[in-house]
């Protein structure tokens, strides 16, 4: 439905889009992702015919060449620019009628289609309102309705959720997801969570170049490599536990990370999901588990490393049940190092772990819950539940009481 091959666009000496190639199948929803100035809007404008390409081997939308059959292309696309350009002095239904007439729709056709589309985007009750009196969110929806009105084969949506509050964003995301299958959708955002929630496939742009293209899991698999399993448990002898863990099927490497209080930390890497076997071993050996999780590189960390150009991947922990989807936080944060690029990302795992509460201090074989060693503590040489746990702190408190 969209074919782009070796597309380049220059503005003087600035190369805004540099040898970009990609294609979209009918019904696909694809997200352009990249920081401000990555070339997302320029690429979209070229596809709509608003800007000309400096050079391109193939540039086809809906089967038509963008340069030679520009009007045909424009007949088959619904375009919503980031600024949502609507005539403020027009009523919503007038704006829709104007769009319909531009696309050659007749009066009867308009009478049927306009309420249908307005209903779909949830602004039917606002059809008599002046566009200029609408809130940003409502205007965005009207913009979407305008783009959808001629039932285009291709929808090009530039930052469709920018400037919206979280609730409105969620509504627009749901709407766009519903459009999958009916229309081929190319959308853009500089917020990863937005793109991920709306599209199946992500094209990451950086300085006008495509740096990654694929489905979320594909990108993680191809760019991020394998993950690892993290284990924290009371194992007694860490060295012996490591040797034991190394014998598990599929385990290729076991590293002792750090000891936090009575808990030893291990990192296991290997093929397949190792958590079941590790869990079974822990149960058999009576290890008190504090953490058993699979840690995989997230798309957020990959995206950050791709757009910043830093190869390091900061892994974020994933909750223990393996098939559970990665939860997406609503509130994005701006990462250090890439702030100023307009790049909003999801929160990552903290780079520095918080100091453990269980600092044993001078007592090597005692675990204290109190940072000043005045809290409950127990003998570290014995496993949990052995009945020898002392609670000196509590006793002290009781005495004082």
């Amino acid at each position, binding site marked *: 439905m969209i074919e782009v091959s070796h597309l380049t666009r220059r503005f003087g000496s600035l190369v805004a889009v540099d040898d970009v190639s990609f294609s979209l199948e009918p019904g696909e929803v694809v997200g352009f992702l990249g920081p401000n100035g990555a070339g997302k809007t320029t690429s979209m404008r070229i596809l709509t015919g608003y800007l000309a390409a400096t050079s391109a081997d193939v540039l086809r939308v809906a089967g038509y060449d963008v340069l030679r059959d520009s009007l045909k292309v424009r007949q088959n696309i619904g375009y919503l620019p980031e600024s949502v350009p609507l005539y403020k002095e027009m009523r919503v239904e007038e704006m829709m009628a*104007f769009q319909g007439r531009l696309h050659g729709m007749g009066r009867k056709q308009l009478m049927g289609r306009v309420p249908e589309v307005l209903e779909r985007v949830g602004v039917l009750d606002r059809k008599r309102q002046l566009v200029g009196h609408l809130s940003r969110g409502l205007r965005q929806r009207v913009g979407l309705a305008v783009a959808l009105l001629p039932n285009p084969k291709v929808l090009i949506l530039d930052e469709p959720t920018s400037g919206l509050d979280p609730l409105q964003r969620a509504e627009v995301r749901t709407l766009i997801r519903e459009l999958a299958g009916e229309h081929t959708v190319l959308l853009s955002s500089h917020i990863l969570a937005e793109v991920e929630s709306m599209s199946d496939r992500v094209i990451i742009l950086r300085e006008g170049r495509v740096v990654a293209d694929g489905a979320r899991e594909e990108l993680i698999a191809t760019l991020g490599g394998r993950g690892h399993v993290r284990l924290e448990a009371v194992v007694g002898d860490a060295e012996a536990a490591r040797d034991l863990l190394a014998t598990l099927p599929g385990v290729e490497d076991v590293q002792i990370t750090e000891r936090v209080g009575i808990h030893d930390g291990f990192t296991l890497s290997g093929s397949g999901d190792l958590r079941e076997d590790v869990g079974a071993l822990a149960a058999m050996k009576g290890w008190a588990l504090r953490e058993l999780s699979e840690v995989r590189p997230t798309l957020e960390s990959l995206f950050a490393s791709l757009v910043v150009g830093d190869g390091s991947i900061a892994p974020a922990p994933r909750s223990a049940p393996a098939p559970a989807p990665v939860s997406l936080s609503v509130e994005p944060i701006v990462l250090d190092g890439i702030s100023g690029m307009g790049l909003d990302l999801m929160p990552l795992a903290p780079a520095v772990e918080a100091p453990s509460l269980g600092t044993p201090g001078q007592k090597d074989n005692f675990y204290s819950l109190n940072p000043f060693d005045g809290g409950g503590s127990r003998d570290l040489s014995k496993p949990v539940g052995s009945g020898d746990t002392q609670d000196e702190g509590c006793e002290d408190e009781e005495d004082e009481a």
Partner: protein
Amino acid sequence: MRGTLIIFRRELAGLFAAPLAWILLFVSLLLNGYLFSLVLSQTQGDATASLEFVFGGNFFFWALMLVLSPLLAMRLLTEEAANGTLEYLRTAPVSDAAVVTGKFLAGTAFMATLWSSLLIYAAALSLWGVEPDWGQVITIYLGAVLSSALFVAIGLVACSLTDIPLLAAFLAFMACLLWVMMPALGGMLLVQMRVLFADLFGGFEVAEAWIGGALERMDVRRHFGNSYFQGVLDSAEVIFFFTWIGLFLFLTTRSLEARRWRG
């Protein structure tokens, strides 16, 4: 053609939706009405002289045209570019030529509404028993509309060069002013050149006569005064306006198309 009409209707509605249009119309009608009644009373009810004075025979007529046409062009093109709606239009399935023509027609229709006060005054005089020369009234009206159309077209070219509304209005005004002043300025320049080059080049008189003639032929006021103002509808005078308007609309279209490359 379909696209032109759709855009023309929207632009005209858009112009009249803005308070600025009504304010301009009000001020213009007030000024014209006052001048008309003043001249009518001073000439003891000479309808023709009064109409001639108000529509073409005084400074305000040309001043209005020179101020309003660039403002309209700015509103039609540059404001839309600044608001982003030009991006909407230029990604809609209509050609740039249709967009430009539609906007030009809307601007011209607005000016035609402005000058329609001439027809109202003539009709009022007719009602009171003083029959004006209707042929002359119609040709003056046509001439005023065509002259305004020419200035709107010149304004559109200037406004297509920038996205800054104030700069666009200034450029458009200067371009229109230059067009009106060109014969006079050209004449002055020729006099200066004659002083400098007459002794050097033998055939300077011939060149001077040719350039002077060409500049004279571009004089809007002369074309208006010699034909429309006199009640004569000369095809050559109609072609003059249509040719220049066509050229300026073509240039505007090309300038818009160049934006695709310029960005």
